[in-house]
């Protein structure tokens, strides 16, 4: 029991401390995107009909070294700034799956064939996810926001423009700042950062906190040998287990490629390894829960199911292509050089910035929880006739 608690605590801390700096950076960028994007030409570019907007979002995402937790604020702010659902989802999926460091590491340790499959999967799967969610996903969250007059933040039950009686606000939607280009650059930057850290940040951090706690519980009860148990087989159940487990736990591409490499060398099916790598990096519970409550329930269910099915189909195809007898072959010296190159591309964050970002993220999560509690009490009061909404 003590070991399980220890595992829970270290997993929670690890996910939070690894992703915190990227979430904070993403909140800064997301706030600026929200302030400046609606009036810029870039919005027109990202909202173009057809395939180019989706392809652009995937290429842009593939160049960023951000994990699946760090991409949430940026994806939500793009969505709330009026970007089409398809490119937003494609961007959110492509960013954590593929980045230059991960591709180089994959080439160094998994060999050229798996790397080709990984890159193709990392480019095609986000595109398909974008198409599916745009076609069948829920677009109503943004519609509700567009009708919001939106200058308010939920700080007090009765004194804000968006009150506790507004179900939209209390269900996790974030108020949109009115588009105004007349202010100076400094005022607009301040407004963007205020939106990022006052409106978006607490909401995202609150849902991330729930997801991180659930991920901690899963890690505490998952046996340490699960990798050997599930990822060494090649049948469809192993593919499903790799996809579902990968989508639930926190996996960072750069950190998990060496792990996948040792599994492959020990005889794991290449399809299973790649399914785990792609679903694991594409998403995790904190991300799914945050997106579920901000972008839309139907969209996220479609996203998760399509990701798992798409990854499984690709895994089967990779198995058909490379099995039986696949063994990654590479030159040891060249591999070490590539490992060095990959690690040079991977930004390292110092301990102090990482700790400060974790504290900031925790404070945002506490603020988000406080607002939820206030909103809940407000709803309870109004339902019993004593609240500000009863008149």
């Amino acid at each position, binding site marked *: 029991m003590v070991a399980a608690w220890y*595992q829970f605590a*270290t*997993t929670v*801390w*690890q996910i939070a*401390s690894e992703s915190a700096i990227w979430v904070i950076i993403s909140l800064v960028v997301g706030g600026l995107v929200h302030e400046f994007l609606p009036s810029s030409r870039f919005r027109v570019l990202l909202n173009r009909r057809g395939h180019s907007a989706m392809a652009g979002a995937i290429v842009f995402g593939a160049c960023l070294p951000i994990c699946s937790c760090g991409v949430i604020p940026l994806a939500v702010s793009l969505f709330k700034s009026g970007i089409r659902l398809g490119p937003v989802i494609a961007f959110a999926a492509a960013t954590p799956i593929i980045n230059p460091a991960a591709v180089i*590491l994959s080439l*160094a*340790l998994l060999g050229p064939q798996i790397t080709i499959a990984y890159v193709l999967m990392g480019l095609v799967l986000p595109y398909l996810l974008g198409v599916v969610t745009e076609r069948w996903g829920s677009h109503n969250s943004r519609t509700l926001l567009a009708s919001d007059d939106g200058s308010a933040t939920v700080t007090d039950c009765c004194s804000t423009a968006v009150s506790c009686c507004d179900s939209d606000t209390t269900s996790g939607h974030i108020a949109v700042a009115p588009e105004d280009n007349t202010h100076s650059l400094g005022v607009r930057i301040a407004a963007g950062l205020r939106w990022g850290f006052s409106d978006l940040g607490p909401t995202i951090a609150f849902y991330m906190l729930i997801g991180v706690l659930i991920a901690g519980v899963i*890690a505490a009860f998952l046996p*340490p*040998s*699960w*990798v*050997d148990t599930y990822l060494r087989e090649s049948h469809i159940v192993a593919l499903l287990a790799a996809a579902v487990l990968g989508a639930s736990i926190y996996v*960072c591409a*750069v*950190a*998990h*490629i*060496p*792990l996948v*490499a*040792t*599994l492959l*060398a*020990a005889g794991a099916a290449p399809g299973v390894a790649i399914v785990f790598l792609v679903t694991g990096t594409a998403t995790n519970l904190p991300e799914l829960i945050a997106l579920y409550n901000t972008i839309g329930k139907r969209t996220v269910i479609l996203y998760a199911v399509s990701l798992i099915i798409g990854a499984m189909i690709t895994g089967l195809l990779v198995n058909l292509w490379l099995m039986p007898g696949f063994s990654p072959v*590479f030159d*040891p*010296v060249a*591999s*070490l050089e590539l*490992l*060095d190159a990959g*690690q040079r591309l991977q930004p390292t964050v110092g*301990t102090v910035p*990482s*700790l400060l970002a974790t504290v900031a993220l925790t404070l945002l999560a506490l603020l988000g929880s406080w607002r939820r509690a206030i909103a809940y009490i407000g709803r309870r009061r109004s339902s019993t006739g004593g609240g500000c909404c009863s008149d």
Partner: protein
Amino acid sequence: MPLASEQQHQALTRLEELDLLSQGLIRKAGDGATPAHIFRVETRMYRELLRQTMLTDRQRTEAEQLPQNLLLEMVRLSALLHAAADCKTGYVIICPPDLMSQLRLQQAKVSQALLLARGKVE
């Protein structure tokens, strides 16, 4: 002992020293008390010494070179150790159980491959 075997013997001795270094690193990764910056420096040292040994090995003829399989296993172990170096929790290294179990398995494979190589040389 012929010169080629002597050189191979020396190279294997260097790899065995690296094996001891990696065993110590894995112990440190598991104890949850090793400062991250120290672990990172030692991991880098492991990689650089491995690279040096491999480059020296390259200069010999193919028949006199160390087994490629052994070197590949050590490269994989080096990559796993670097992944462990990224698992810092505050100031210390704390690795998740799945990574720890893979590190131990890989270490066992490297030690086994070293024993096999030593058996072939002697």
